[in-house]
């Protein structure tokens, strides 16, 4: 579904990702871990097409197509979704209005009939159960005055409505207490099917207790320094990131890609 080949990218002329290779197949859950500044969020934003990030070389193929040639909205309509680390507020626009517009854009793109507000309301009510959100959230302005946990739940609600093929969760666990974390993780697990793939970007292993990855990739200084199964996350939890980053800086290539 997703093939990243030797990707170099950065922001403001500074290179952050220095040769990333990653393959994600349908049905898989991948965790991207790493210390602050390792390039995790950059990778997420490059996948979503954030205009400030520039890809200097390498390739990203999404379902065999060149993802980098697609605008952010095109990517979204094709099924790429990013849950934001810091969801943005849109004053005066209700959650329901925003979600219906986004949902209908996708339907239009797929050549399907758009839903009217009443039909959409029913769909939204159903999907909101995934993240245990009350109806009152739908009439409030997008993310305005939401608590940190509510914002993150709202991101997963959007995922539930848009039914993406590839979801990138950018530090979705940051700022969540344990109950909210469980709700969000349960939501993601309910939405995951053999037909979609999820990339979980996180600093901590905690979230991975709930969303169990098939593969773990550890980023350090813009490259994938280690790869493994879910045990790798546990190892990091006990040892921290130092042993990887140091090994990497010593040029030992401690985590040469296993595939």
């Amino acid at each position, binding site marked *: 579904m997703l093939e990243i080949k030797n990707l170099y990218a950065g922001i403001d002329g500074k290179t952050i990702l220095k040769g990333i290779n990653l393959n994600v197949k349908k049905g898989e859950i991948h965790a991207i871990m790493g210390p602050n500044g390792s390039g995790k969020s950059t990778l997420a934003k490059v996948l*979503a*097409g*954030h*205009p*400030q990030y520039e890809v200097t070389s390498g390739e990203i193929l999404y379902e065999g197509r060149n993802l980098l040639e697609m*605008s*952010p*909205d095109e*990517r*979204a*309509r094709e099924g790429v*979704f*990013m849950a*934001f680390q810091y*969801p*943005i507020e*849109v*004053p*005066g*626009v209700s959650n329901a*209005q*925003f979600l219906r*517009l*986004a949902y209908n*854009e*996708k339907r239009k*793109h797929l050549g399907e009939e758009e839903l009217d507000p009443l039909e959409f309301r029913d769909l939204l009510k159903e999907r909101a159960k995934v993240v245990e959100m009350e109806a009152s959230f739908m009439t409030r*302005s997008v993310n305005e005055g939401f608590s940190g946990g509510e914002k993150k739940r709202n991101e997963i609600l*959007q995922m539930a409505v*848009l039914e993406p093929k590839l979801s990138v969760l950018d530090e979705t666990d940051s700022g969540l207490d344990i109950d909210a974390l469980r709700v969000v993780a349960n939501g993601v697990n309910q939405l995951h099917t053999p037909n979609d793939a999820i990339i979980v970007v996180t600093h901590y292993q905690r979230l991975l207790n709930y969303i169990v990855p098939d593969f773990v990739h550890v980023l350090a200084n813009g490259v994938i320094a280690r790869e493994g199964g879910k045990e790798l996350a546990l190892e990091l939890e006990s040892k921290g990131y130092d042993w990887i980053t140091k090994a990497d800086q010593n040029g030992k290539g401690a985590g040469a890609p296993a595939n």
Partner: protein
Amino acid sequence: MSTAELLSKQEYKYGFVTDIESDVIPRGLSEDTIRLIVEKKNEPEWMLEFRLKAYRHWLTMKEPKHWPNLKYPNVDYQDMIYYSAPKQKATKASLDEVDPELLRTFEKLGIPLTEQKQLAGVAVDAVFDSVSVATTYKEKLKKHGVIFCSFTEAIRDYPELVKKYLGSVVPTNDNFFAALNSAVFSDGSFCFIPKGVRCPMELSTYFRINNAESGQFERTLIVAEEGSHVSYLEGCTAPKFDKNQLHAAVVELVALDDAQIKYSTVQNWYAGDEEGRGGIYNFVTKRGKCAGKNSKISWTQVETGSAITWKYPSCILQGDNSIGEFYSVALTNHAQQADTGTKMIHLGKNTRSTIISKGIAAGKSNNSYRGLVKVMPKAEGARNYTQCDSMLIGSSCGANTFPYIEVMNNTSSVEHEASTSKISEEQLFYLQQRGISQEDAVSLIINGFCKDVFLQLPMEFAVEAQRLLGLKLEGSVG
């Protein structure tokens, strides 16, 4: 195609010219011009006096060019045509006698006038250049005692009412443009809602400037007697010309005890091109007087067109417990300039006013809010709440807020809030990441920003206003 290119290709869809034979008087302005207009319109002596008095005042006045935050070349008032009317029978027994070319023009503008096609629930007075060409639902309204007709007919058929209220809110010497209008106004709409009547439908006037060289000077007078209610809509468009055209209107509203007037405008004059060539100079005086106790006047405006906007719909809160409201969205793009806002003059006890102003500036435009809240000594317990928000799109535009507050007693409360924001790249990216195109994302953000104002508009107008803002801003980001 870049978004900037998209924008430059954006057509103003009302920019067409109607080819119609018109009765045009020679350009220039003098007492003779006024006598000629009076003669053309077959007006009584008192109207001539009203006009001449205004004209003589006007001669002593200076155009207000120093205080508004507007820059434009001097207008040559002698190089303008003050009366241009499509040739047709002066009085129309029915709509069937209206020139089909005019009917087609209004139909093209989305305002069908013929009996079969008339808009449901809205009575329309259609003004073309200097004259009203048709008014729909007149008879139906008359059954309820509501008078809705062209100003020309009002002077002829209801002279006592006109004499009583004309100039009672905006005196002939009020300001330069109001004096000019009082001297030469050629037509407009007159509405009278008698005591205790709730007007059974929305009333509206649609203004169309067609002639390239004529100014449009129309007059609207709405009188709501005790306990009556009326909702009035105003729409306007003009063809695209390279030259600027002057629109100097006066609107007067009078609300007696317990009466309510809601006045909504969606202004879409031609705004000129990207370089600022052409477009309407919109110098308008709109004022309402809450003359009676518990009366209410509410202005809602969505200003999107015009090269220059100079406009301050105001309320004089004379009656005790009367309420004045001003909800405004002013959008400027390219080289447009707007200096707009309101005046709330509190005279009566416990009078209340609310001002919600949303200014949106894009391109190289300049957008200023100017508002006065004045609380007089006898207006005990008066309250005002003002909120002025500006949004900037791009970095070449400007937004300003000029609030003036004068309070002359110590039992009143006046609140003022202001904010300036920009559409952020992060906001756009967020919406785009959900599959919404950049253009739609801008519209969505702007509509959210303007929500408090749009909520005040009648349903169909609100839809139109949202669509219009999206259209006007297309391509201004990116």
